[in-house]
């Protein structure tokens, strides 16, 4: 653990905080282009955040402290997650404190808090959103964990940097089980980030919402933090995907020059990934909410299958 390690640790969180809203803006742009609309500016999410921070917060009279605390906890959990996922470097001191299972735990922590906050005001939409979010989560979370397990069976470690090291910096090998994991992961990240086909980030119809229904009662700085956390979550998921399936170019830490080289590569990979996400969203239609378990169940079983294939072919 050198000073470079701590530097890359801090740098990585800073990059995540800075890039996450831009990633959302980029996906919105791509979607607009693909759907033949005029694209909103790339920096629009930033402007929204600024606007929200400046406004006065309005909260319901009967809001409990849970409601006011939740945005901060969610934000904290997402920052923590951004520190674990190797996006720029693998020499991360904090990643020793929390491995892939803890990462899933952090996502679950954020989910539980935001669901509790949604139930706090006691409105119909809030509790509906909370119920649906937990419903999506109970299948998505195991699927994500199974995807990570497949990768950790390959690398013999549950620590994310060690997984990336094994996948990127060891001998080149093709891992068939990762094909399953990749499909499952794509499905999970669509569901977890409130994307079509499970949820629609741009919807204005309350009855079809999941994520948006939960945060209806939030305003101003609380909403800003939640939006930022959502962007961070998307960023984290993208980086997990890149780390597992395109791990090349992530600095292995001994050298700060590798770190500098890793940044543009990360941006390029994120841009491609964002465009792919926009394409998937444009090509698919939103599912009925009760088709969602089918979708996620498929993801979960595919991930389990990935582990099985790994056991068969890896031995």
């Amino acid at each position: 653990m050198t000073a470079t390690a701590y530097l890359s640790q801090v740098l990585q969180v800073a990059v995540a905080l800075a890039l996450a809203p831009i990633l959302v803006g980029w996906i919105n742009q791509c979607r607009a282009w693909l759907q033949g609309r005029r694209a909103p500016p790339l920096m629009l999410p930033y402007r929204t955040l600024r606007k929200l921070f400046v406004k006065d917060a309005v909260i319901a009279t009967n809001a409990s402290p849970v409601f006011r605390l939740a945005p901060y906890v969610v934000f904290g959990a997402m920052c923590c997650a951004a520190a674990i996922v190797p996006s720029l470097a693998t020499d991360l001191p904090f990643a020793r404190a929390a491995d892939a299972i803890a990462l899933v735990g952090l996502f679950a922590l954020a989910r539980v808090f935001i669901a509790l906050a949604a139930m706090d005001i006691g409105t119909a939409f809030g509790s509906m959103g909370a119920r649906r979010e937990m419903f999506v989560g109970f299948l998505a979370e195991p699927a994500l964990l199974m995807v990570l397990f497949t990768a950790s069976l390959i690398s013999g470690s549950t620590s994310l940097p060690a997984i990336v090291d094994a996948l990127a910096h060891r001998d080149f090998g093709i891992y068939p089980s990762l094909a399953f994991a990749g499909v499952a992961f794509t499905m999970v990240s669509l569901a977890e980030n409130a994307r079509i086909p499970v949820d629609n980030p741009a919807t204005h119809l309350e009855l079809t919402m999941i994520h948006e229904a939960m945060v209806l009662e939030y305003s101003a700085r609380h909403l800003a933090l939640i939006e930022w956390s959502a962007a961070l979550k998307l960023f984290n998921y993208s980086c997990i995907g890149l780390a597992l399936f395109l791990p090349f170019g992530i600095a292995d830490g001994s050298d700060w020059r590798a770190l500098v080289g890793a940044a543009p590569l990360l941006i390029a990979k994120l841009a491609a990934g964002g465009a792919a996400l926009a394409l998937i969203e444009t090509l698919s239609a939103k599912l009925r909410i009760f088709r969602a378990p089918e979708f996620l169940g498929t993801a979960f079983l595919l991930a389990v299958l990935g582990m099985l294939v790994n056991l068969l072919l890896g031995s």
Partner: protein
Amino acid sequence: MPAVPLYAQLINLLAAVLLLLAFAMLSQRRVLSLIDLFAAQGAALALSTAIVAWATGQRHLYWSAGLTLGLKVLVLPWILRRLIHRLDIEWEFERLINIPTTMLIGIVLVVFAFNLAVPIAELANTVTRSTLGIALACVMLSFLMMITRRKAISQVLGFLAMENGLFFAATSATYGMPMVVELGIALDVLVGVLILGVFFFQIRDRLDSLGFANLERSRDDD
């Protein structure tokens, strides 16, 4: 896995892709997408046969790969699409399948097939022998698909996919069958599909539908 040569890794990957496509077929309701998936499976099969041919230097396997490509990726899907178009069932889909349960049964079958294949694979001496389990699983999944479907055309697709699994077992695990056998099988499949196509028209003319539920009912009448 560094000790395994590259071609074997590629074949393992294609085996996984085949299995993935088998699961995708199992969970696909629309007939047209089913045909696309079948064509993709054929393509993966052709590619893996070609790789085996290249790796082992068996020339006749190139023919076999070409045959697979021509027949399973181009001709059969084309025939089936035309059939669907002519029968005007492009937007039909299966109704009564519980996808998670089917997939769960599928997983159990995969575990079973993998275990079944372990002792058999130990007898073989090829590098890619572990793909035998996957091929077996593909066969079983296609069988499961035939069981769960009600529409005639998806059952035909299940049958074809089953043949894919067998073919993969033959090429990848044991490096191919004699050419005559392959040609014979290919011809059989082609003829089979043609005959089935004729049957579809007959069935539709008689019963106004292609669901097998109607066939069950008509058994007593005729």
